[in-house]
């Protein structure tokens, strides 16, 4: 890897784990559940012990889109200025780690009558895998992170990353929009043993797993994949993340 990552620093950080737990939980609560499931709840989250492998592909000026984004936040008389310190790293990120989380839910059997039977289940999500082209940009004390596309689609990025007079720009190419980035994601469900033979329950378990898998992939793509990005603003932090004022 080109970056050495202290994954233990992250996986043991309770604050970080809590904040991921919270946002994942918020997302789960926002899902409109189908009639055969209720009380979907996040029980446990673990970042796992394996770091992603990050290779640097290119170091350039940040994309114009990030400047435009900051500019939109500013008032009319403020103009964002480019600084020679602004930098963007194009990376190849490969993850096949043991990140996992556990959900609890109740499966509902609505036959022969509504809520005829409920069955508590434990759902484990893991085996998350992706191998993508990502960008990490730092400008104006803000960091931007976005998944561009799967590594097999990287020609799309290379074709469309045109060096325009004002900097790099890929927003013009909408083909990159919402390209699928998750390669693998497994969902396993445990239910009480006495119900294993119950056909309709088993059928609903299968349906629930598919439903959750679709929702999660959709969520990750919506939150992380180009033209979406994570934006971290360090302007209010006392100590800057990347740089410290001299003097």
């Amino acid at each position, binding site marked *: 890897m*080109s*970056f*050495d*990552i202290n994954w233990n620093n992250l996986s043991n950080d309770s604050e*970080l784990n809590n904040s991921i737990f919270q946002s994942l939980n918020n997302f789960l609560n926002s899902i409109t559940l189908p009639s055969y499931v209720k009380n979907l709840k996040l029980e446990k989250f673990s970042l796992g012990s394996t770091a992603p492998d990050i290779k*640097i592909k290119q*170091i350039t000026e940040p994309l114009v889109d990030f400047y435009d984004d900051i500019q939109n936040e500013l008032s009319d008389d403020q103009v964002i200025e480019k600084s*020679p310190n602004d930098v963007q790293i194009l990376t190849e990120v490969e993850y096949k780690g043991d990140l996992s989380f556990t959900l609890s839910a109740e499966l509902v059997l609505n036959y022969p009558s509504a809520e005829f039977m409920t069955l508590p289940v434990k759902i484990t999500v893991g085996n998350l895998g992706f191998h993508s082209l990502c960008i990490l940009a730092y400008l104006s004390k803000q960091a931007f992170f976005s998944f561009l596309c799967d590594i097999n689609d990287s020609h799309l990025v290379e074709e469309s990353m045109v060096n325009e007079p004002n900097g790099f720009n890929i927003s013009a190419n909408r083909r990159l929009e919402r390209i699928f980035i998750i390669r693998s994601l497994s969902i396993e469900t445990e239910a009480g043993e006495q119900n294993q033979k119950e056909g309709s329950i088993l059928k609903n378990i299968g349906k629930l797993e598919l439903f959750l898998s679709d929702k999660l992939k959709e969520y990750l793509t919506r939150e992380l994949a180009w033209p979406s990005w994570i934006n971290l603003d360090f302007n209010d932090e006392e100590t800057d993340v*990347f740089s410290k004022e001299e003097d």
Partner: protein
Amino acid sequence: HSHLKTILEKTCYDVDTHIPESLDWFNVLIAQIIQQFREEALLKDNIVHSLNDYLTKRSDELPSYLDGIKITELDIGDDFPIFSNCRIQYSPNSNKKKLEAKIDIDLTDRIAIGIQTKLLLNYPKLRTAILPVDLTLSIIRFQACLTVSLTKAEDLVPTSDDSSVQGDDNAYYLMFSFLPGYEMEFDIGSLIGSRSKLENIPKISSLIEHHIKKWFCERCVEPRFQCIKLPGIWPRSKNTREEKVSTDDDISV
């Protein structure tokens, strides 16, 4: 005004018609001084070691995103600067109250320093990601027009608020500065990454070049001047020496 006119008359220098002078004699003397410095530094490994010791001692003062700096190479060059085309003129905007010398300077050499460090990403936890960086910075060409003049401290304004800068108002200073159209050519090598590395990234070169030029420009490019206080040159016994008598067989008397 008439004061300067008298000086020019009595030194037979007409600023309008005097032809530019070569400074060949000066180049030879400067080259000797530089040569001497290089010979002392011939043990340049020693300089590398002492620089590294210095950097290690002061590593606490490094910004939080750097994990120590190690000097891996130091090249002090083997060529000499050539000064030429020297002429005296009235300082622009001085209303003929000041004189200055303008000298062209040209240096083609390789003066290089190699640096090894690690960039740290301190978010969301300290040292979350570490990126090894190898840099070689060399200056290979410097071409500029130098302005030199003498002046009293009362004519100068310090650019920093540091009160220790305030000097003796009656002392004379040698002022020098470069004209903005200077050329400074760098050769910057970079190697970035831990196992798979990226080599010679133009963005890194332009970033470093920008900072070096900014540093230089804020100190030595007009309208900024560097000022060196001139020592007294009145002959004094403590400054008096005699040349060593060199004998072939080195017999002491």
